[in-house]
């Protein structure tokens, strides 16, 4: 079996790629996808430790993280659609005022 440090290091790498993408990109939808990448890295850590300690609780938490991620994506993409309607752009540099 694989050393437990390997999946954890993979999770750190994926999380940091999510952060870099979050800071690099100007497209709001890609920023949302980078958020999903970070959620995914967190889930990987939960599953790794659930496997390590042989308890089911880690997997239960992954279910909750998935639920919150789904809710966040639904609201976030609805916001994107609304912002695109008023500003005709999803560039986050354009979103510098609250009133359209």
């Amino acid at each position, binding site marked *: *079996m*694989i*050393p*437990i*440090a*390997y*999946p954890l*290091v*993979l999770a*750190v*790498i994926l*999380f*940091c*790629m999510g952060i*870099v*993408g979050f*800071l*690099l*990109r*100007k*497209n709001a*939808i*890609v920023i*949302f*996808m*980078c958020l*999903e*990448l970070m959620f*995914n890295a967190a*889930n*990987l850590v939960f*599953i*790794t430790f*659930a*496997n*390590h300690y*042989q308890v*089911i*609780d880690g*997997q*239960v938490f992954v*279910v*909750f993280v*998935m*639920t*919150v991620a*789904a*809710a966040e*994506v*639904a*609201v976030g*993409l*609805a*916001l994107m*659609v*609304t912002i*695109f309607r008023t500003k005709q752009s*999803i*560039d986050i*540099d354009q979103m510098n005022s609250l009133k359209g």
Partner: protein
Amino acid sequence: MTTGLFVFLTLAIIAITAAAGLILSRNTVYSALFLIINFLAVAVLYLIMGAPFIALAQITIYAGAIMVLFLFVIMLLGAEKPKEIEQMKWQRPLAFVLGGAILVEGVYALLTRVSITVTTNPASEILADPKTLGISLYTKYSLPFEIASVILLVAAIGAVVLTRMPKKDKGQ
């Protein structure tokens, strides 16, 4: 090299390459497709770590439902190739420096706390059984489960309210 390690390294390389494709691809649709590849690779990783229910939930919820939502919105907005105008020249190098700093810090913190000799357990019968997960979800975690359902309801109502057309368009 054992078979498990080989499978893990292959999946890790696929996941990291897909993540790099996600953040570097100019076309938003390609980014979404790279993210699906990443989710699939991580799902197989869950499978070899003895969480088959979570692996399949990952494929149906993330790679299925959420990414379809993303692709629909990308195509609805026609945002496949938006122009990305660089307003702050220092932002790009700073992003790499800060991301790299967190990477080094995280790997250091892990390797000093988690021993390299500890290995993952082979897939066990109890942990892999969806029945155990279900019992835990409906007994020990029943309150968080109910709260999660309320969160989903609020998100659904919020999405409908946010995307509703203004009233004046309806009247005409």
